[in-house]
């Protein structure tokens, strides 16, 4: 293994880390407030599609990122409305969102660009030059978001109130916290970050929209959230680890040491192994996924 390969692995692993960490951080915040969602996979995919459209219309990749954030927030409002205000099941809407995105994106690619299955963007996000290497600013933005979210969640009164909604909503309510409001906006924040992750994949990292581009990342992010014990800071480590295996698979696949299918399995197997090994110690928030009804 030469220096070039090491730099390739490092760079690719950081790029691959971004969507996992963003989604994990968002999901952790939402679940800390007590709302579970498994729809992040669909949100990533749909935002990748809409983010690309926003970018192409405006001519700026950064507008695409904001567009993704916005679309993610809309999905969060839908999920929050169903789960927080209507007290519905927390898992079923996610199944619907995933299926909706899996249909809407290939449909939209044909209807909007007239190509089947895949569309390549004419431009991508501007990158920072460090020596001979380029780095996406989104890598630094993601690290910053993880740190700030951690700080807000664990070091400020706002975070304390959010966590109270997820641990003991009755007590939070008794203290005058509007549980429904906190839960709703936490859900919106969680899905908005997943939307940013999706838009990043299309307008920055891959520079294309493909009908299966989310590739299970929404679920891997949930696994990473559990691995990191619902802590945004720790999810940086887990996210980078996944990014590394993703990069390793991309690097190994063309070498034909073993059939490529076995290499592509790697990130998923690692996720399974890590989650299986760690989970006994992880503890979800007490009222996670439980609708709260005032007596």
């Amino acid at each position: 293994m030469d220096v070039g390969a090491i730099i390739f692995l490092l760079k690719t692993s950081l790029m691959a880390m971004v969507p996992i960490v963003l989604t994990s951080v968002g999901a952790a915040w939402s679940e800390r407030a007590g709302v579970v969602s498994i729809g992040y996979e669909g949100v990533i995919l749909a935002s990748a599609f809409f983010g690309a459209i926003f970018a192409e219309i405006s001519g700026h990749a950064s507008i695409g990122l904001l567009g993704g954030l916005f679309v993610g927030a809309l999905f969060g409002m839908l999920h929050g409305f169903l789960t927080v205000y209507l007290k519905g099941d927390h898992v079923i809407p996610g199944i619907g969102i995933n299926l909706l995105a899996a249909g809407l994106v290939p449909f939209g690619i044909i209807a909007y660009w007239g190509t089947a299955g895949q569309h390549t963007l004419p431009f991508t996000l501007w990158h920072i030059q460090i020596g001979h290497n380029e780095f996406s600013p989104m890598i630094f933005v993601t690290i910053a978001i993880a740190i700030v979210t951690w700080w807000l969640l664990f070091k400020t009164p706002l975070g304390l109130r959010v966590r109270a909604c997820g641990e003991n909503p009755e007590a939070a309510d008794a203290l005058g916290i509007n549980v429904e409001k906190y839960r709703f906006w936490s859900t919106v924040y969680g899905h908005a970050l997943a939307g940013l992750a999706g838009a990043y994949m299309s307008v920055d990292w891959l520079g294309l929209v493909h009908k299966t581009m989310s590739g299970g990342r929404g679920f891997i992010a949930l696994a990473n959230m559990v691995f990191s014990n619902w802590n945004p800071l720790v999810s940086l480590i887990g996210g980078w680890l996944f990014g590394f295996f993703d990069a390793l698979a991309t690097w190994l696949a063309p070498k034909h040491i073993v059939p490529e299918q076995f290499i592509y399995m790697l990130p998923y197997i690692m996720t399974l192994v890590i989650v299986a090994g760690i989970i006994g110690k992880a503890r979800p928030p007490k009222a996670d996924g439980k609708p709260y009804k005032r007596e």
Partner: protein
Amino acid sequence: MKSSGKPGVGEILEKINFKAFVESIIAVAIGFLIGAIILLAFGYDPIKAYTALFEGGLASTENIAATLHYSTPILLTALTFAIGSRTGIFNIGAESSFYFGAIAAIAFTNIWGNLWFGLLMGMVLGALWALPAALLKVYRGVHEVITTIMLNWIGWYFVTWLIVDPYANPSNPIKTIRVPESARLPTIGDTILSWGFIIAVVVAILMYVLLWHTTLGFGMRASGYNQRAARYGGINPKAAIVWSFIIGGITSGLGGAMKIMSEFPGYAISQGGANISGFGFDGIGVSLVGRNHPLGIILSAIFFGMLKAGTSSMQQTGVPLEIVKVIQGIIIITVAVPGLYDLLKKSFRRAA
């Protein structure tokens, strides 16, 4: 409740859960309505598209046979999700158990060209692939949504390797070797519909009997309703969960095996697994619209089968077939609205 000699209409309606039935119908209607808006937004004619869709699924005996043919695999994967739901778990692993059922049909019927052997091995492989998620859930407390999704991806890459390498057809490398003639499911009459549909309906009825008329089924539903209460009642929720995964794996595995053994005229898996992917996820929608009830699922599977049968004629009008998935997604989100029936009734009363 008053008991008269003959059961009243209200009583019968209560037994088939009238409210749930109406809610499913409303959800379907809303799905089509929003689907129409999306079609309009992208410049397609929704009336033309839907007419073609329904004609494709119902217009002739042949089309109805196609509808039932397409409903068979999703009926069986829906049962996987349903039995999971009844046990209180979200088993989304039907997708990969289905792959293993399909590859089992190819692999084992070419060892011994017996129909029942192929079906049996499909069920065995489907159940085996569901087992890791069950054990991780019971012994390590890992959420089944994460494990089953990871297993789906691992299973996908493994089976696509099996398709292009060990079981590739040397004379037609874009397909696998075929199921031998002696192990193919016979068709009914002169249609593409095979006896697989009848088998699937029988399996659904058996699952109904299992869930509501056996001790094991009672234990499953009890632990799905309230684990702690079930444990006090002498039920072992861990065993119930493991059985739920195994039985779910069996039905999906059977679905995969029957898909390939009734795949007229090729009787093989095509390149990239195109004819075995997506059935597990479709099954989730079928199950939710059928209210996770085996008998409701039979109806809902036939409905979704009609959509599948109709897509190709809808596609001929120039509408991308993926709109059907969009409609399915909206239907599921609508089904997730709790008390939809009461909600609408209330708002109608307010409007009147």
